[in-house]
Every structure is written in C-alpha cells, then in structure tokens.
C-alpha cells in the first residue's frame, strides 16, 4: 500500500491573477528542472517493477509541483485550473516530453471523475486522497460475455447486510496486477432490465477472493489482465451512486472526462508523434536511396498529418468548451475519441510503412512514453488500445448517430430496454 499520510499539495493556481502566459512560463521552467533527463533511454531497458517504480516517482514529482490533479477543486487537493490553463499544462508537458502517468490512467481519468461527480463527501475525502497519494486503480467493466454489449454483464453482487458479495469474471482489467483499487460494475438486480440492474462499486484489490492473471497483449506487453471474483466482499459504503444506478455513473463519467484526457494525448501526438516522425524521417531514405523528406508524396502525406493533428488539437478545445458550457449534444467525447484514435492509428501505420524494413526490428515499448514510444510498428499495434477499449469506435459511432443526429436505436432483443 502506498503511504497514506496526508500531505498538503501546493496549489498550482494559487494566484488567480496569474495570466495564462505567465502560467505557461512557470510550467516550462518547472519542466526544465523536473523532467528526468534521458528517461526514455533508461526506461527502454526497464522491467515491469522498474517501470512501476518510475511511475510512482514521477507521480510524486508532479504532485510536488501541484500538477497531479489540475482540474480537481482545491478543497480536495486539486488546483482547480481553468480549462485554458489545463490546455497549457498539457502542451508544456508534451513539449518537455514529460513521462506519462500510464499506470495511473484509470485512477486519474476514470475513478477520480466518477468519485468527484457521484461520490459522498466521505468517499471523496478517502479515495481522492488515496489517488493523490499514489494508489493504482484498475477498471473492472468488461467480461468475457459483455464487451461492446457492456450492459449484459453478469458478475453478480448479492447484498448481505452491509456488504455486497461478488462472484464472476472480469477481463481486460489493465493494471489489475498492480492495482490497489478497482472501479467495478456488477449486477445487483438480475430481474430488472439489463441497464437498470447494475451498480458501480469501489473494490479493494487486496480483498480475499480475487485472483488476477495477466494476459499477454498483441504487442507482447503484459499489463492486460483477467480477474476472477470468488465471494469477494465489498462494503455497501463503497457503492458510488444509487443501487442499480451504476450504468448512469459509468456512462456519464466515461464521456465527460474523455475530452480532457485526449487534450493531453493530442499534444503528445503533435510533439512525440508527428514532430518526432518528421525529425526521424529526416534521416531516412526511400528504396531508391533518395532522402524521404525530399519526396513530394511523402511531404504531402506528412503535411496532411500535420494539418489533422492541428485540427485535433483545436477540436478538443472547442468541444470541451462546448461540453463545459452546456452547449454540447453529449456526443462530443465520442467524436473526439473516434478522430483521435484513428488519427493515431493512421499516423503510426504511415510511419511504419515509411520506415520500411528497419521498422520490423523490435524496439521496446516504453510504458511511461504512453502511445508514442518511438517504435513505429509497436505504436501502431498499440493504437488498438485506443480504437477498441472504452466503448469500441463502432459503439462510439452508434452514440454519435443516436445522440448527435437523432437516429433510431438498433432493435433490441426481447426484454431489453
């Protein structure tokens, strides 16, 4: 367990008079002193334990700077940064090629927003403190029989007094091996229509009855897991939102936070994806020996990607602005997810093709590098980690069609709602 003693976080936006550009200068300055020099090289050879240790160390560094929870309210230890400053923070972290908190992805972008929106005061205080102190979270949503049809999940939670007793199997629970906590969707009413019988629980991963097995991914990495639950007890006090109201909690927070998460990813795609590709390609040649960047077709393709990455960055800001201003249709996050993930995939595919056979030589994927490890082929494969999870892009297109364009839902099987 991480160290649980409470520490006061410095408040990054202590001076509300600080202009956005002053804030940028401060972040840039901070990065020059705190981003570990040469971390990509040292992390390239790191084993899993060393990767996790590095993640914890970087999380502590970010926290000391007041940049771990930029969007949380100050009374919960956040920095309550306005959107413009969050955007600048993302830009500057990408510019400095700061490590990415990959192991804390679920904690920061899934668990924390859900707890902020739906948690009781006790839950906020307990769990947000834990997240700041470094607890790793995983997400127990998918099941072998409930992927895109998530609401068909069958892991059951039977209430006995003040605990739920969980039995079932979860899959694709990334980081379950290292996790302290799990946001988990369970069936609490088997007779209700399928979306109305689901509850959202916060499960201690150190509870008895949990078995975790790693699943090796197509990239060779092993942070995927499956998880078996055998009479696992979760206190009723750890339920988020009302009993049988878990679907709403999951749907709301998945969508609302994806935009901000991708704002950061868009900046990284700009810097460590596209710009790094251009810099790298300056040293590559084509099959006839001519320099890659002297070729008009290559130049045109790169220019097209340049434009699309700028469009992605602008789109994130526009749509987040609309969402926070209550002007959205609810499908903005789905549009961002579809466009970002497919742009990432197309860019990495192009880079792999352009690099030719040398791209086939294996390079390590670097956990802390996020989606741009510098291994073009590896990053291309890894991009399925965006197009498939979190509601596959096909599910996102359903959401866009139904919520944004008012198209009718698909026919449901008998008994479904």
């Amino acid at each position, binding site marked *: 367990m991480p160290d649980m003693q409470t520490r006061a976080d410095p408040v990054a936006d202590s001076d509300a008079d600080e202009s956005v550009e002053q804030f940028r200068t401060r972040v840039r300055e901070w990065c020059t002193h705190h981003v570990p020099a040469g971390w990509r090289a040292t992390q390239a050879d790191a084993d899993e334990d060393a990767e996790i240790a590095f993640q914890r160390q970087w999380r502590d560094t970010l926290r000391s700077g007041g940049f771990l929870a930029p969007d949380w309210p100050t009374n919960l230890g956040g920095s309550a940064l306005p959107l413009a400053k969050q955007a600048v923070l993302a830009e500057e972290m990408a510019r400095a090629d700061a490590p990415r908190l990959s192991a804390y992805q679920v904690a920061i972008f899934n668990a924390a927003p859900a707890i902020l929106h739906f948690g009781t005061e006790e839950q906020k205080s307990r769990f947000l403190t834990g997240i700041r102190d470094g607890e790793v979270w995983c997400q127990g949503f998918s099941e072998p029989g409930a992927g895109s049809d998530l609401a068909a999940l069958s892991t059951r939670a039977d209430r006995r007094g003040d605990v739920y007793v969980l039995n079932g199997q979860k899959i694709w629970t990334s980081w379950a091996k290292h996790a302290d906590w799990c946001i988990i969707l369970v069936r609490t009413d088997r007779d209700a229509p399928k979306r109305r019988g689901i509850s959202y629980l916060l499960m201690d991963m150190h509870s008895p009855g949990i078995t975790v097995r790693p699943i090796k991914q197509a990239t060779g990495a092993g942070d995927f897991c499956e998880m078996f639950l055998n009479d696992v007890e979760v206190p009723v006090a750890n339920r988020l939102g009302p009993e049988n109201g878990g679907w709403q909690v999951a749907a709301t927070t998945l969508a609302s936070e994806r935009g901000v998460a991708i704002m950061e990813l868009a900046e990284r795609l700009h810097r460590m994806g596209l710009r790094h590709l*251009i810099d790298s390609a*300056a040293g590559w040649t084509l099959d006839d020996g*001519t*320099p890659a*960047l*002297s070729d*008009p077709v290559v*130049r*045109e393709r*790169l*220019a*097209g990607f*340049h*434009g*699309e990455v*700028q*469009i*992605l960055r*602008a*789109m994130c800001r*526009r*749509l987040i602005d*609309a969402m926070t201003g209550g*002007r*959205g249709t609810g*499908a*903005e996050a789905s*549009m961002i997810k*579809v*466009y970002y993930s497919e742009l990432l995939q197309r860019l990495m595919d192009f880079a792999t093709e352009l690099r030719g056979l040398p791209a086939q030589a294996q390079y390590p994927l670097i956990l802390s590098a996020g989606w741009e490890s510098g291994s073009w082929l590896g990053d291309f494969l890894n991009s399925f980690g965006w197009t498939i999870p979190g509601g596959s892009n*096909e599910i*996102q*297109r*359903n959401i*866009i*069609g*139904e919520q*944004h*364009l*008012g*198209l*009718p*839902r*698909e*026919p449901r099987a008998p008994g479904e709602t």
Partner: protein
Amino acid sequence: MNDHPELDDLREMLRGALDDRASSERVRAVLDSPEGFDGALWRTVADLDLTGLLVPEEFGGVGAGLAEISVVLHELGRRVVPLPFISSAVLAPTALLAGDNTALAAAMLPALAAGRRRCAVVAGGPEGQPDPATWAVTAIDRRGHYVLDGMAGFVLDAPDADDLIVVARGPDGLVVAAVEARDADVDAIATTDRTRRLGTVTFTGVTVSPDRMLARDDRAIAVLSRLQSVAAFAVACDAAAVAERAMDETAAYARVRHQFGRAIGSFQAIKHKCANMAVSIETSRAALSLALDALQLDEPSGAEAPAVATAKAYVCDAAVTVCTDAVQAHGGIGFTWEHDAHLWLKRALLDRALFGSPSWHRRQVADAVLPAPSAYLS
C-alpha cells in the same frame, strides 16, 4: 455547435431572409433559367448590406470582417445559392483594400458595397491554376501604361461581372490591375455544377492606365497572397456548409425512410456513415476556426498560410466524402435530378477544385512545416 454567438443576430436575419428567397424550388428555377444567376436575390443580399460587409464604412460599406463573411457564406452555401458573392463581396474588396491605389479603391468600393456593380478576380492560369508560373495573362509596360494579353480559364463569376481585377505576370514580377469586363472577351463555361458560373477570360491588347493599377512588385505579391488565402478560406466555408446540409438531410432521411420494417438509420451501415459525416463536420469546423484565427491576425506575416491551406485541403476533401456518402445513403432517390443531393455533391466537387487542389495546398503546408527539399540535394 455555434462558433460565434455574437454573430447570432446576423445568422438569424439571414435564415429568415433566405428560407423564403433561396428555397430549393427557387434555386432550381434559377438554374434552369438562361441567366443562371439570381438577380432578385442579389438585390436582396445587397439591401441587407451583405455585399458591403468587408467594405469600410467610409466607402459605403459595413466595415465588418471575415467572421461575418463566414456566417454569410455558411448560410448561402447550405442552400447552394447561385450568386457571385465570393467574387464580388469577398475577393474584390479584399484585393482593393490590399493594394496601394486608394483612389481606385475609393472609386470602385461604393458600387461593390451597394451591389450595383459586380466584380470577378482573375488570378489563375489557363486551367485556373493558382501558381503564377502557369499563368498566361501578361502585362507589358508601355510608357507607364500596361497592356494585358492572354487567357485565364475557369474564372469564378466572370460571366456576370461588370469589372475584373486582374493579377498578371508583368515585366518584373506581378502586377494587379482593374479593367472593365467589356474590354475583355468573357465566355461562360458550361460546368457540371450549375450553381456557380465560371468563364474563360481573354485579353487582347487591353490597355490599363496608371490610375487603374492596383499594385506592382512586392505589393502585388502581397495582394495575391491575401487573395489566395481569403479565396481558399471562403470556398472552404462554402464546402463545410454544403457538407453540413448534406449530413442534416441524410440524417433526416435515415430517420424516416423504412426498409425491412424499420428506419434505415437504425442500421449501423447507415448510422455509421452518418456518424462519420458528423466527425468530418466537427473537424472541418475546427479547421475553419484555426484558419479564421490566422486570417484575423493584425499583421499577417505569411505564417497564417499553413492553417488556411490545411482548411482548404481538409475541408474540401471531407465535403466531397460527406456528399458522396449522402448520395449513397439516399439510395435511388439520391441519384435523381429532382433530389438536391447531386447539387450538393457537384458544388463540393467544384469547391475542391477551385483556388488550388487539396494536393497543392498540402504542398504549401509541407513547404512551411518541413525542411526544404533542397536541403537533401547534394
């Protein structure tokens, strides 16, 4: 999503005016008429001061900017309105204000603002190419007067123009001049998109007096640069608007058209096409907002060019895809003359080809963001 809430009044006013006067029936009636241009609607647009939006107040205009223009282009584009708005109300004022002949600007702008005269801009090659290296219109200096010769093809709105602003290849670089359209030979081209009128413009020894010269040398290069940026932005606004209309109509059709006992919009094959349209529209809006921000910089430095070129290339490509999918999703009815889907697709195809192809624009972006190809030649 609404980009410019402060422009809501303008947008509402336009919708009110155009819903009656630029209905699909009205547009089709104009396309079938010999004029091919809606004179009554042009008067309405002028009476609403839209033709004077970019013209400063001192010259009888409104003194507004490209943000307002983008709203007008959007509403006109959604209705595939057959008007020479881009040439006369956007490009001609842009050229006159970017040149250094104030007297000429003062002489021409009031009539343009009032919609009394219409002006087309000739700044392309025999096939409408944007690169001056391809151009055939030349200007020879004859004792202070310039003499224009040569041909420019596919000039937007030339058949309905009273005046022409011409960017020509001069003896030492580019020159920009204003001539009356009757001094040149203008032949209308029968184009597939009948909502726009293009023409071939031929000059045969047309003499331009010094007071009709708008710019020379570096100033002429600056005029052309601004013209090309604004033209690319304007046509991209139009393309995005046409695509948005195509998306709206396709979604509306998919909600009501039933096959196999249910609305076709419930099938993923159709729903996902529509979702792709929505993503294309949102990304197009983002591209246009970047381009508009760049064009509104107080002191354009040329650094705005990649954002505008990206918008032109990306939005026009996307619009053709959206309009293609719109025809397909409508099925047989979408391929009939009586349905508007072919009007949207044809306009999107013309927009893509006008003022530089997507490929040409991407190459401009490449030259701005990549090391020069010559850096690799030993």
